């Protein structure tokens, strides 16, 4: 794998940061971001898919009350694709509606979805060679997060208790001088030279004004906030030519 990777640097790959507002639908937004990125990477097609379809057509039918990324992918498979965000827009009210999947043209679909190994190296390899993936983390520290790389311990952020799904879009290392320069609304008002630190870059769904323009960074290599617990991605690929088989006489 390369030393750094950031899918935001490939034009038209990562869709704009979404805002889930009063709907508890991080799981659907993470899945949508995953499918959009994979379509851009595999087919060079920039699409914005309907999160509302994922919510309305979710098997439990209460998508704004929380859900699972794998349920979003099951919905995509069941609906044979997703409509566009423009045709089937996000409501954001916290309510779901009747499933209108059949009424709209599908702009993206998936072949399958998989759960990756719970290992940061293999997650990085997959991210670098295939594209962004969804992960589910412990949300606790994000309430007060402004910027920088979060490096937590199991005590400060329990990696077993994961409750927020986001899209993993890259990884890198901080420069050795970065950080510890305070700003008015934070409590860090001193400077201290730091060693470089490996991090993951994650796309959140709380709008572009939260965190680092809608993104945040977690330390890479310590399973910070349980990032390795549920790495899940859709499979989007050009269908392989069907292998011919022959039936013996």
């Amino acid at each position: 794998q390369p030393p750094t990777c950031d899918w935001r640097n490939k034009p038209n790959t990562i869709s704009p940061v979404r805002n889930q507002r009063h709907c508890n639908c991080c799981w659907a937004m993470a899945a949508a971001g995953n499918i959009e990125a994979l379509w851009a990477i595999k087919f060079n097609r920039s699409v914005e898919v309907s999160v509302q379809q994922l919510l309305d057509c979710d098997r439990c039918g209460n998508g704004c009350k929380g859900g699972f990324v794998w349920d979003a992918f099951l919905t995509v498979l069941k609906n044979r694709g997703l409509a566009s965000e423009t045709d089937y827009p996000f409501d954001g009210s916290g309510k779901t509606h009747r499933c209108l999947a059949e009424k709209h043209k599908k702009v993206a679909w998936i072949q399958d979805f998989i759960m990756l190994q719970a290992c940061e190296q293999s997650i990085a390899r997959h991210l670098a060679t295939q594209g962004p993936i969804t992960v589910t983390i412990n949300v606790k520290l994000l309430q007060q997060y402004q910027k920088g790389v979060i490096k937590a311990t199991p005590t400060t952020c329990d990696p077993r208790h994961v409750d927020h799904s986001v899209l993993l879009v890259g990884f890198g290392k901080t420069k050795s001088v970065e950080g510890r320069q305070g700003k008015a609304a934070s409590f860090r008002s001193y400077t201290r030279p730091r060693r470089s630190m490996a991090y993951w870059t994650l796309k959140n769904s709380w709008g572009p004004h939260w965190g680092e323009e809608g993104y945040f960074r977690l330390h890479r290599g310590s399973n910070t906030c349980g990032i390795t617990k549920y790495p899940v991605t859709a499979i989007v690929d050009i269908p392989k030519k069907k292998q011919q088989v022959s039936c013996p006489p």
Partner: protein
Amino acid sequence: GSLRGQDPGPQPQELKEVFRLFQMQYNRSYPNPAEHARRLDIFAQNLAKAQRLQEEDLGTAEFGVTQFSDLTEEEFVQLYGSRVAGEALGVSRKVGSEEWGES
């Protein structure tokens, strides 16, 4: 050296001013004075918590006022978290092991 732990945090008047700025920035209003007082109290607790997180963090993260600073941790998790994966579905990582398909 470090100033870690020396900042006592905002004083009552300062706190009210910081809260007023927060309300302006994130367009927050509360239905009555009691709710306003409650949110101010939560806001103060969150500032203290941010300071603690700042001290505990081993990385370069900065914690402080955010759009969620007037929410309790329970409200925040309820509003913005997902379900706790693994509890509702009984999902385990044992796919492929001898336990797969047993139930």
